[in-house]
């Protein structure tokens, strides 16, 4: 975490449910819930624009100033989106201490190009984020990955240099970026022959005729 924890003003929600949540969204507020640390869950609402600004910077930890109840340091645990995936409809916050260790997803920032990338080959980013375990006060916004140091055609999660105090919380053999050769398609007569000989799908279980 390269800067101070951003503060967001939150209001306690007395009325919960679909109808009240929808009304809140129409006024530019976003329904949210705070839970964790053995305390009772608390339904709150936050300003949508303010939260989105913070989240777009890659921030994971925010300080919620709840009106009449003081401040709480929270980790953004989950985001819920509408069916088109562009409108945020709900946020989950979990209470954290700055000293405790948490498992979070951190975005990868790919820089440079691998040496094995040439004509007829393609660089694909198979994973755009890494699951790591670290202290709350040291969660980075992004992890920088220098692809020029990539050995061979694949970069695994275990090969990425992590900041001190941070541990990988996913399979180290997971491919994060890879260089693949682009296949040429069968065209002309070859493609036509394949299309003509397309087999019918095989039926796994046919009904027995005259069973009764």
């Amino acid at each position: 975490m390269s800067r101070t924890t951003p503060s967001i003003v939150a209001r306690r929600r007395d009325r919960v449910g679909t109808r009240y949540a929808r009304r809140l969204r129409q006024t530019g507020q976003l329904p949210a819930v705070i839970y964790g640390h053995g305390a009772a869950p608390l339904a709150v609402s936050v300003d949508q624009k303010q939260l989105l600004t913070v989240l777009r910077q890659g921030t994971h930890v925010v300080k919620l100033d709840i009106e009449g109840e003081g401040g709480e340091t929270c980790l953004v645990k989950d985001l819920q989106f509408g069916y088109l995936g562009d409108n945020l409809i709900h946020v989950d916050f979990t209470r954290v201490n700055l000293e405790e260790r948490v498992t979070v997803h951190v975005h990868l920032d790919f820089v440079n190009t691998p040496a094995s990338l040439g004509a007829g080959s393609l660089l694909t980013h198979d994973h755009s984020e890494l699951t790591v375990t670290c202290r709350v006060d040291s969660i980075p916004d992004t992890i920088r990955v220098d692809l020029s140091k990539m050995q061979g055609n694949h970069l695994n999660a275990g090969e990425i240099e992590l900041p001190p105090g941070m541990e990988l919380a996913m399979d180290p053999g997971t491919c994060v970026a890879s260089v693949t050769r682009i296949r040429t398609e069968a065209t002309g007569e070859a493609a036509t022959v394949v299309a003509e000989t397309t087999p019918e799908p095989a039926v796994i279980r046919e009904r027995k005729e005259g069973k009764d």
Partner: protein
Amino acid sequence: MPRMPKRIKFRKQMRGTLRGNATRGNYVSFGDYGLQALEPHWLTARQIEAGRIAAQHFLRRQGKVYIRVFPDKPVSKKPLETRMGKGKADTEYWAARIKPGTMLFEIAGVDETVAKQALARVAQKMPVRCRFVGRRLSV
């Protein structure tokens, strides 16, 4: 070659209804940019193939195209000049059920401008209104 299942449990299916919005497969998962359907429809295997060809011809050998839908629904059609009855007809084509929000295609390995141009060509081949989207916010 149009896509179809390799193995099926039953040769024919009832038509069913397309209700609601997509709750799965509605965000960019594999590539960097995607084409999202905004209307419900049955997308035929030929239309999916036409979209794939349009994208790959435009991209030449630059990027990678992911097809996020699969035509697993057999659609039957009675031959012309046939009287009604005599049972359900043979399968005419295979279709994918598309709900609003379904991600149809994704592209990786190219910049936004090229991806937008490629997916605009794909959208021309689609029977539904579509829109260009990027990866969504995540924590």
